[in-house]
């Protein structure tokens, strides 16, 4: 009898409460445990350990160079110091920008009589879908020396000066902020909508004016959400590579991620790994703070089915605010797409928009040029294999965490969500160190990309699957067992169909990432294994051909849009009938996890 997820193991797991530890899990469950543990060690634990060892000068069991010299040199190096400074400025600036914009819009849409709520939702969705690297390219197309705004300025004023410049730390902050504010918006509007309105009503009955209700009740209640999403935005923005490479490197400024990348280009592996450790320490710290924040403060309420009657009238501010918001969102999310779209039809970047300068050749080239075609198929194939690996491992681990609280399983699920705190550049460095020599020589094969992608996808798959798996009432499985299904049958007939939407959205999100991911692709590809990310990055930096880059970007935007619509649709169908109050609470607990799908 194939008791793959069978009850034999379950009884053991229950007994293991007495003697905690990995060794106690015996029977068939231990088989699952060993397989998933091997996968996690191979994908995540081994590369990160090698990275840490390397930064201390230990490579391949060779202790001769052991020491802190690489760390010491980091702090002596003025470039690295500058990179740390830029990284922190970008992190803080982006967080401030995204929080201000996101919270403001969330209140406008959820709490006031702002007239164009639906359109705001659409525009926010749009900026959310555009990859940040592509947003960066459109930024250059608009504000670069030869960009649209400078050309308009010259055309209008007749002067031959070009006032706008695309390259600066502020530009990075704006581009990243525009890319990340939708996450803030979604999380905060969720918190506002799910908040218990009677709490605010109770305050105004107690005699609080509208301002005091906001200050004393509403704001403190959404504060945990705002803080934790702010930390999330911070860690995302310091982990970014693409935008910094686009908008800072040309003016000889650096961030930690670009520093890692160019250290690798100079073949300074040890330097790259020690800068990586600094980067990971910062983002690890942020994730730790976030973990403790969300753990202690959760004000989600149970009774919130009442309709929100607390709509605040904007009064005289209504029209100025509407005009301002619409203009701002238009510039932030519509203009970039328009600029990319327009540029993709130009024969050559920089030509004026006249009929004879327009062409479809950029698009036909993508499909006829074997190089681009190859890049797209590589991205898709690697993404598929990697997400299959990550989904399989996640299914096993999530199922184990549900049935057992043993320490081994906890450690496993901790390590599987660890890549969330690791910037992609660092993942790539770890992969190079781990896979460029015996015992595993994956370098210069597609497998190094696939394995690293799989590690990158692990947390995303875990969250998507765990969110749904935890909604499943254990009684449903018990009912199947009582009806005569064995452990495997219950898994196949009850659990898999119920978590299928999660698997599907994990797959789509992973594929979208593999289509637009840049640092891992750039650092790990070899000839023949180029992905779309490599294509995007190289094409722009080598030939500056914005017209072809734009055409590829249009296709990626379209794919991202389709994929997103698909996962949004899937989300709505996830609800299976009436759920018990206990499960509803679980879902609320995890609704915060929604935003974690917005990885990368």
């Amino acid at each position, binding site marked *: 009898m194939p008791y793959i997820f069978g009850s034999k193991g379950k009884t053991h797991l229950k007994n293991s409460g007495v003697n905690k530890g990995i060794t106690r899990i015996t029977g068939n469950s231990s088989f699952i445990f060993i397989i998933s543990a091997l996968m996690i060690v191979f994908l995540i634990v081994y590369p990160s350990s090698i990275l840490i060892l390397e930064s201390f000068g230990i490579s391949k069991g060779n202790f001769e160079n052991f020491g802190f010299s690489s760390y010491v040199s980091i702090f002596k190096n003025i470039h690295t110091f500058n990179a740390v400074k830029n990284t922190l400025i970008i992190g803080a600036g982006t967080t401030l920008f995204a929080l201000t914009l996101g919270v403001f819009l969330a209140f406008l849409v959820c709490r006031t009589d702002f007239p164009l709520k639906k359109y705001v939702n659409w525009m926010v969705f749009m900026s959310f879908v555009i990859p940040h690297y592509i947003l960066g390219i459109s930024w250059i197309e608009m504000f670069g020396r030869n960009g649209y705004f400078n050309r308009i300025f010259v055309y209008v004023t007749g002067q031959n000066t070009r006032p706008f410049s695309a390259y600066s730390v502020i530009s990075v902050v704006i581009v990243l902020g525009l890319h990340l504010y939708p996450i803030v918006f979604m999380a905060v509007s969720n918190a506002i909508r799910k908040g*218990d309105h*009677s*709490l605010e*009503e*109770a*305050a*105004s*009955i*107690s*005699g*609080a*004016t509208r301002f*005091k209700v906001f200050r*004393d*009740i509403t704001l*403190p*209640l959404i504060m945990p959400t705002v803080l934790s999403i702010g930390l999330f935005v911070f860690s995302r923005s310091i982990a970014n590579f693409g935008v910094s490479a686009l908008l800072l490197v040309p003016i000889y400024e650096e961030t930690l991620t670009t520093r890692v990348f160019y250290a690798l280009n100079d073949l300074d592996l040890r330097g790259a790994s020690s800068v990586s450790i600094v980067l990971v320490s910062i983002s690890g710290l942020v994730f730790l703070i976030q973990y403790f924040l969300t753990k202690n403060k959760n*004000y989600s*309420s*149970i*009774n919130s089915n009442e309709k929100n*009657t607390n709509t605040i009238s904007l009064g005289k501010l209504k029209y100025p605010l509407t005009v301002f918001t619409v203009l701002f969102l238009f510039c932030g999310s519509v203009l970039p797409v328009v600029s990319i779209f327009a540029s993709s039809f130009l024969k050559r970047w920089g030509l004026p928009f006249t009929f004879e300068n327009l062409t479809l050749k950029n698009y036909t080239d993508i499909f006829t040029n074997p190089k681009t075609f190859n890049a797209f198929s590589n991205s898709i194939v690697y993404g598929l294999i990697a997400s299959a690996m990550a989904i399989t491992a996640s299914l096993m681990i999530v199922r184990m965490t549900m049935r057992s609280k043993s320490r081994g399983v906890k450690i496993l699920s901790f390590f599987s969500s660890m890549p969330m705190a690791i910037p992609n550049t660092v993942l790539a460095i770890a992969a190079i160190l781990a896979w460029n020599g015996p015992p595993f020589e994956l370098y210069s094969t597609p497998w190094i990309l696939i394995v690293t992608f799989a590690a990158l996808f692990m947390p995303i798959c875990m969250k998507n699957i765990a969110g749904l798996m935890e909604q499943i009432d254990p009684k449903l499985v018990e009912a199947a067992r009582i009806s005569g299904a064995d452990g495997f049958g219950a898994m196949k007939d009850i659990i898999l169909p119920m978590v299928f939407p999660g698997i599907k959205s994990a797959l789509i999100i992973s594929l979208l990432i593999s289509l637009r991911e840049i640092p891992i692709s750039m650092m790990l590809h070899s000839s023949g294994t180029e992905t779309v990310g490599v294509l995007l990055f190289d094409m722009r930096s080598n030939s500056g051909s914005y017209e072809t880059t734009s055409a590829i970007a249009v296709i990626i935007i379209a794919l991202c849009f389709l994929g997103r619509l698909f996962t949004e649709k899937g989300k709505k169908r996830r609800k299976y009938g009436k759920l018990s109050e206990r499960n509803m609470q679980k879902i609320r607990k995890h609704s915060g996890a929604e935003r974690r799908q917005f990885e990368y």
Partner: protein
Amino acid sequence: MNIENGELITILGPSGCGKSTLLRCIAGITLPDSGEITINGILFSSGRKNSFIPAEKRNIGFVFQNYALWPHKNIFENVAYPLKLKKIKKAELKRRVGQMLEMVRLEGSENKYPHQLSGGEQQRVAFARALATNPQLLLLDEPLSNLDAKLREQMQNEIKNIQREFGITTVHVTHDQSEALSMSDRIAIMDNGRIMQIDTPFKIYSNPSNEFVANFIGKTNFIYSDDNIFGSGIQDYYAKSKNVYFSIRPEDLTVSSKTGEESGVVKSVKYKGDSIEYTVNINGKDIFVKTGKNDFFEIGQRVFLNLKKEALSALKCS
């Protein structure tokens, strides 16, 4: 609808009939479409004059169904918040909160947070908060519906005691009829946004003004003139007016196995512990009867029913 000073009036009705909306209009959370609300001679809201005093200026106490205790404030801060907004001095505020918590027997819990309290305790905090500022009116929105049966009964007594002690005018909304009957000075029965009857609990039960009220409160039998039963008992009424029908409560009928006005066959039996409920079929009409706990009859047995005439209530045909 008029509410007297110092009384506890219960608004009772099926869910969705508008009783909570009425309460929210009185509190000033919901803007009424039309009509006027006046408290102590002051116009609080008027559709016609387009005037509306917002909730924060009304000085009203409100206990929510889910208590609405602020989760980020501890018990002391929850009760103190309305006082703080009134700019009451610190020493006085402290004394007042202590007094309130003592009243609801929660002294010593000042530093706890709402989630550390049980449902009953949370509810008592909600009461303390609602009464802290000595409001002119106390509104209760189904405050007992989240409690289990035993605790609910205990809280009913407590609410009644607190209300009497303070002499505070109270409007209580519920859909639980036994709660309404046992707590209220008067009851207003509401259906579909309209008030069907306002009366003392006794009058509501014994003398319902229409079929909806009779049916909504307790169980009853409707007897029409063409049913042709209990003819002798209700003859007097028909003499006065043909245009009436009757409501007879099950406990106002007595059953005997020997003699009676009407005879019928026992159709079903429900044993309730303190009483027994029978369905007796008389000439094809089912009549509900409630008897003492020792009156046993069997299904299919022929029994005789007698009517306590003073318990009859006549309803006008519409």
